[in-house]
């Protein structure tokens, strides 16, 4: 969890995460001769309800907490963590982190973040009504979603229907003057569906994510689960050929996630980005303007502070196809001779901050998906992809992924197809983007979805 709501100094005692920041302060105060210390302390909880056949299959209620301590001395870094805030364990963590410093290699750029004066854009990340939402209502929501999904189509079965919520609070303090706390909560409902036709079974899913349960759209979640499963019934394996693809918003969001690893400042300074020498050059078609903006409250991953405690900010990465900027945390920025873009990401107390885009979005175009499809003579509407983690290499740029969707012929959507792959290279795909749709959809990922037309992609099938 990254940092969220800024600390109100007036409420420092009894405010958000007051005991956590007090613990972080105590750890940081133990810095000895020349040590930089960062203490990251968090606590969180979750509820998960899974319903099957109208009954609760399981109900999980859990809390966890922990601390991570990073120490830097003379360019060497050591780190330790514990999944408990027991005072003895905290002492042990500090001692272990200190002991680990000796084994690091001296790195002239090593160092913690320092306050940079960039103001925070406050975000509405905590909702009291969710914190008070009763258990019976959570169970009812999951049961309702299962009922709606089953009622929509006689070919549909439900694998499981779920309600889940989570909350977290966090505090970080450093010897360099960072001192932040925050908290956040959120919830979702999700359903996994199966559609049967004779011997054939296909699967689908639907979900709705919200800051509070009264904002759920159960109808859309159940409709998506039904559509995704039934539309693939009778799908065949197509013949291999080169064609134009139209990516559904959900697929585009995953594609942007892959692209973002090539714009990662850490990959750039370590020579692993295929765009490392291309700043200022045309790397994508003129239709592509890519922005990382965690200060947009519509983004699922909106935040006001990054994982090192610096203000999150809007960064234009690609402008009209021209590569403008990489994303950095304070380490990669120092090494690249620039300043942090507020893009430190961290997975929790058990790790140190990495670098990553926080809330990517393509600048939308003027036309909806139907209009984009109407212009395609011979193409494929890609509705889902699989194996992005295994078939895409962001270092070489080789891109190959399993996919399913609908063939497009003379501007009309036709037969469903599956068990196929689409392949190109990341470099070519960015240049081959013909048009961005108008249908921006903020999904529960670090990127927004939008329909996207890409020319000249190889489809492999029979």
């Amino acid at each position: 969890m990254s940092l969220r709501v800024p600390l109100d100094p007036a409420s420092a005692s009894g405010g958000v995460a007051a005991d956590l920041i007090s613990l972080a302060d105590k750890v940081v105060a133990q810095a000895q001769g020349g040590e930089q210390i960062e203490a990251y302390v968090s606590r969180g909880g979750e509820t998960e309800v899974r319903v099957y056949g109208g009954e609760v299959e399981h109900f999980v209620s859990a809390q966890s907490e922990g601390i991570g301590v990073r120490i830097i001395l003379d360019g060497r870094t050591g780190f330790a963590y514990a999944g408990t805030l027991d005072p003895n364990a905290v002492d042990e963590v500090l001692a272990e982190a200190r002991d680990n410093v000796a084994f690091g290699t001296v790195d002239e750029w090593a160092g913690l973040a320092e306050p940079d004066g960039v103001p925070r854009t406050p975000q509405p990340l905590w909702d009291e009504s969710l914190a008070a939402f009763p258990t019976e209502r959570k169970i009812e929501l999951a049961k309702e979603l299962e009922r709606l999904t089953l009622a929509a189509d006689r070919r549909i079965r439900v694998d499981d229907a779920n309600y889940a919520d989570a909350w977290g609070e966090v505090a970080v303090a450093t010897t360099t003057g960072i001192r932040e706390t925050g908290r956040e909560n959120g919830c979702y409902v999700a359903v996994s569906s199966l559609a049967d036709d004779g011997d054939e079974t296909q699967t689908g899913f639907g979900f709705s994510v919200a800051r509070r349960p009264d904002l759920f759209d159960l109808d859309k979640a159940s409709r998506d689960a039904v559509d995704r499963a039934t539309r693939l019934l009778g799908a065949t394996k197509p013949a291999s050929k080169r064609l134009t693809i139209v990516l559904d918003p959900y697929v585009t969001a995953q594609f942007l996630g892959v692209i973002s690893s090539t714009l990662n400042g850490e990959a750039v300074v370590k020579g692993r980005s295929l765009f490392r020498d291309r700043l200022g050059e045309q790397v994508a078609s003129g239709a592509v303007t890519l922005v990382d903006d965690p200060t947009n409250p519509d983004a699922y991953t909106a935040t006001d502070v990054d994982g090192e405690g610096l203000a999150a900010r809007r960064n234009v990465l690609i402008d009209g196809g021209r590569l403008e900027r990489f994303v950095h945390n304070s380490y990669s920025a120092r090494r690249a001779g620039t300043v942090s873009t507020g893009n430190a990401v961290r997975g929790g107390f058990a790790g140190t901050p990495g670098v990553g885009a926080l809330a990517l979005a393509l600048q939308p175009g003027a036309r909806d998906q139907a209009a984009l499809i109407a212009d395609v003579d011979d193409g494929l509407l890609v509705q889902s992809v699989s194996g992005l983690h295994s078939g895409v290499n962001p270092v070489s740029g080789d891109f190959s992924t399993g996919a399913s969707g609908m063939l497009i012929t003379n501007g009309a959507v036709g037969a469903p197809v599956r068990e196929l792959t689409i392949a190109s290279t990341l470099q070519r795909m960015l240049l081959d983007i013909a048009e961005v749709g108008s249908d921006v959809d903020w999904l529960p990922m670090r990127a927004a979805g939008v329909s996207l037309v890409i020319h000249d992609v190889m489809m492999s099938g029979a």
Partner: protein
Amino acid sequence: MRSGGDFAEVYAEDKRSTSAGLDDGRVEQVTSGRDRGAGIRVVAGETTGFAHTSDLSESGLRAAAEAAAAAASQGGGGTRTVALTRTPTHPNNVVERYPDDVAKADKVELLRRVDDAARSAGAEIVQVSAGYADTRKRVLVANSDGLLADDEVVRLLVRISAVADGDTGMQTGFHSMGHTLGFEIFDSVDVEELARDAARQAITKLGARPAPSGSMPVVIKHGTGGVLFHEACGHGLEADHIAKGASVYTGKTGELVASPLVTVVDDGTMAGEWGTLSIDDEGHPTQRNVLIEDGVLTDYMWDFLRSRKEGRVPSGNGRRQSYMHLPMVRMTNTFVTEGDSNPADIISSTEKGVYIARLGGGQVNTASGDFVFGMTEAYLIEDGEITEPLREANLIGNGPQALRDIDAVGNDFAMGGPGTCGKDGQGVPVGTGQPTLRVAAMTIGGTAA
């Protein structure tokens, strides 16, 4: 133990870990970690309640137990007292040098040797990253059936990735090793050799041509393709998918589901392997389970609760990522047993196809059987000979179809590298293995016509 449900269980864990990462020629940091806590499960009727806590004091455990019982029954329930019988654990691994008895400096030194070896493999190598990680985990499981079992699990992992740069851009190579053994493993495994292999892959791929597109025979080198069976049939044979009719293998026991050349086994007892456990995470001994024998589906994999309901012996496949997770049916070490073909003959009898020297990760849809895999090191087969290296691509297929299409199985069985299997948001360590084998037709997702 007192409980308000039909079944109650406590799983307690205390884990210490050390990891070290080297990148860009620097040991970036050594990390020490400590995780401990307990997960408490209460079952009432068809409902499972689960709560976990990092507070192992009596009051902390009681609070978690009450939360789990309340979750399962939504209140109510009686009390009963159970006598616990300690089940002796027969260890499947003998650890000689516990990693926490080894100096951190020795672990860091290992990474330096990896870095040096990979960089000296060729001037094309421009970047190397390497990681070392060890864990020592004590677990204890007790349940309201009277079971009491405990175990200690040691795991040790090394991963190496190399980047080569040339006129055609950058390429990557990867190698990893993982065992449920101690530091003595480095007496028999040469990490520098693994590093040179990662570097060789990256350099070889600099000269690779685009992978072909379309359906053709695929020969998979021994030890690198077990993951195919993990995905193509393993997940579909997990009893939870079967119970919900969400697997293509539902109701197929006793039927021919694969080529008669194929026998698939899941075995949690293999000494030292990455997926090996003495007891599973519900306290039951792991065992060797034959899933498919000579092409015929013999059995599914079971967790304790499901096998208890069916009145059968558990198969030792109830696993969880940590005390914070509910156990479910999971694989351990999944592999295809040896056949009788000479691997060289399998290649020479393939006129045109693809030879996969290293398969990457994969993904399967258990309901439709469709799967994908990355080919991270592959070559063209032309006229029965391995010829040019290929750029990376995914291959795609359908599990039941691929199992039927296996037309040659080699006599050179080998286990592969360590894997992490993801299911329902939980990752657990698994092993895979297989002899060299050929699938008569699979779709290669390259760009070359």
